[in-house]
């Protein structure tokens, strides 16, 4: 187990360093000068030069990269060119918001997808199965910005039952927080639910046709016992993988969802940062996202091996 962990962590570290390198050079390759963007069309050359010098933008890129990485490893991500707030502080303010949104979306997605997928698998080729599939197809196909705007127009503008946008902290106002989070979380969760549901269905169908399930049935066990106690455990393994992979999609989806519902989270932060060429902010945000992504993948691998011991025991993978 330790060996397995060490190997995974080593790979993760390399991935992580590569990402920082790509981002650092990538953001500088986009044409456009942060100082000039900050000034908009209203620029004067001397002032711009001062901004460039202040943020070390005149040094060669490798020098800038090493300086940044050294500081970053000490936990200092620099300060935003636009607001002059420390990047760490800005991220610390935004990250929990997107995490709450993602977690909420995940709960909604799982809450919809797993039961529907199981149901669909058990009642394969019935009307219910067809219906579930059709709904999931819609879920995948509907763009989230459209669904979001429609929800706002219906629930906020027409019915006035939910606020259209914004964010309040859960600690300040729990009800207000949930009221504002439910629509974005639903929009974000909907697309994920569709993907998850299809995976659950496929995986369950596969497991349900395995020999040990037939044995379980022939022992005279009730269907729900077979499904939940025997089939689901094995059926869930691919789902966890998918979930891990989908976390990236979830973060990407958060960019759009946060724009529509004006949630001041991570997604909006990065979009704005790129548009304003706020290099320190882009780098900081991507660094943290990449770390999260690498970490999640690591956790998925580990949770895998916890659910199915065969994965962590070398050479026994073919035992069944």
């Amino acid at each position, binding site marked *: 187990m330790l060996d397995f962990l060490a190997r995974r962590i080593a790979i993760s570290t390399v991935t992580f360093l590569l990402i920082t390198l790509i981002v650092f050079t990538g953001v500088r390759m*986009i*044409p*456009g*000068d942060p100082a*000039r*963007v*900050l*000034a*908009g*069309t*209203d*620029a*004067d*050359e*001397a*002032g711009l030069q*001062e901004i460039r010098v*202040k943020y070390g933008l005149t040094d060669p890129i490798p020098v800038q990269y090493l300086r940044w990485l050294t500081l970053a490893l000490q936990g200092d991500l620099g300060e*935003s060119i*636009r*607001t*002059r*707030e420390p990047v760490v502080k*800005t991220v610390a*303010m935004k990250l929990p918001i997107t995490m709450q949104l993602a977690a909420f979306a995940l709960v909604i997605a799982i*809450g919809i997808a797993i*039961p529907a997928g199981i149901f669909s698998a058990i009642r394969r080729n019935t009307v219910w199965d067809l219906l579930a599939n059709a709904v999931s197809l819609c879920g995948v196909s509907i763009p989230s910005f459209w669904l979001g*705007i429609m929800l*706002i127009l219906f*629930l*906020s*503008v027409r019915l*006035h*039952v*939910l*606020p*259209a*946008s*914004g*964010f309040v902290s859960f600690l300040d106002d729990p*009800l207000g927080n*949930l*009221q504002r989070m*439910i629509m974005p979380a639903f929009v974000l969760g909907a697309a994920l639910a569709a993907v998850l549901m299809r995976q659950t269905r496929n995986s369950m169908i596969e497991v349900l046709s395995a020999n040990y399930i037939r044995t379980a049935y022939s022992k005279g066990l*009730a269907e*729900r*016992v077979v499904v*939940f*106690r025997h089939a689901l455990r094995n059926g869930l393994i691919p789902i966890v993988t998918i979930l891990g992979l989908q976390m990236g999609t979830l973060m990407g989806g958060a960019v759009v969802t946060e*724009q*529509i*519902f*004006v949630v*001041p989270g991570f997604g*909006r*932060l990065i979009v*704005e940062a790129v*548009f*304003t*060429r706020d290099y320190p902010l882009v780098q900081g945000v991507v660094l943290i996202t990449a770390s999260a992504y690498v970490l999640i993948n690591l956790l998925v691998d580990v949770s895998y091996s916890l659910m199915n011991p065969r994965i962590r025991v070398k050479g026994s993978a073919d035992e069944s």
Partner: protein
Amino acid sequence: MRKTVLMRGGYILLTLFAVLAFLIVPADAQSPKKTLVVALNQDPDILDPSLSRTYVGRIIYEHMCEKLYELDENLKIFPQLAAELPAFSDGGKTVTIKLRSGVKFNDGTPMNAEAVRYSLDRHINIKGSARRSELESVSAIEVVDPMMVRLRLKAPFSPILATLADRAGMPVSPTQAKKMDDKFGTAPICVGPWKFVERVPQDRIVLEKSEHYFDAGQARFDRIVFRIIADDNVRLANLRSGDIDMMHLVAPTDAASLKKEGRFDLSSVTGLHYNSITINLHNKNGKNTPPVDLGTPLANDPRVREALDLSIDREALNQVAWEGQYTPGCTPISPVSPFYDKGRKCPIRDVAKAKKLLADAGLAGGYAFELTVTNDPQQRRVGEIIQGMAQEAGFRITLRPTEFASMLKDDDSGRLQALVVGWSGRVDPDGNIHQFHTCGGSLNTTGACDKPIDDLLNKAREVSDQGQRITLYKEATDKMVLQRRNLLYLYHQNYIVAYPKNLKGYKAVPDGLIRLKGVSWN
């Protein structure tokens, strides 16, 4: 054991539904409101008058950082923290400013001549100052008495008054500025009817009524919340749902339908802004490098540029691109400006003449060039309309939509043939013309350089008589838009603001900033 799994599932579902039902209760009913929520389309940069550069930032300052001078609805400058308009003496090289008495900063410290001297000095000398170039003409700042400041100018510079009616004229609390240094923008303290409370980047800026303001009756809201909502549709949906009270920059395409709904008042005012086709004449190696012969008819032959100018129907452009909500124009000076030349007629579209000009230039077979536009739907539409109109005169325009920051960079570096670009506009015409049109001007990306034009524009800086300045700008404009044609001016943007009908007292000023002093819920 078997049952528990299912039962647990059932409970979870039930709980979920209960939570949903609980959430879907009517959002809070309208209580007597003391707060006003204003939606802006962009997040301001740092809120330090010495350092900040963004347009939206000025909307925040209007409420918490007042200025020595202010503009009224007709762009007339009147004293705000100054007691009266400044006295110019010594041939325009000395400016004496008498201050309003009894004014306190929002930390309770007095606003006096020393504070103003400190602030102007900070504007000029702080590292990374965005005000230095605006105050370039100032050579010394002197305290005459506790309520009087004197500025010594290097040369007569009449735009100084307009400069002091913007961020360069904002006194900051010296106590706070000394304490916070370059972090002043995270907790700014100036003179204002409201004071800074908190800022959540990209989300909101909150102000609260000040207890120190000298004219407290003007602040009729306990709190003002500025929310940042970038997307036009989302901002509009939030206005309709009541999540925001006031929307800045309503899209022209939405203005008509919003008006029809009957719940909102719309205020539309022609701004100081202009939009133009900027044509590169001699810039190949970057702005302010020696002029280069680009070798293209567009750059070298004024007849080609005149043909392009004559192929455009500005009125139709305004109708199609902006639903007629903006204001067609053909000069850098907006019709709202006191410096506007009322006798000026914009060129009327004349395709036959345009064709003839092209033929005279030896381009009877047509002429192709590339026009860069910002990569957003509205500006692309403007580009497409120009493309269509110019085609009839024989121009084959290739449009190149480019993201804004990249476009500015390419323009500076001289990589573009022509681009559609705007300017937010300044009260004094100098700020809309001089730096774009003079040889070596800081924003002269077209590489244009003609001494007669420079002479006129420099002269207009020196004289302080308005009538004389109007004449000078008229002459310069004739040379720029009827002969040189390096910028073809197209239209002036209108600032459209929407708010519920029970909000009273809103007056629009052509700089497009929102001003909430004296505004109240009815």
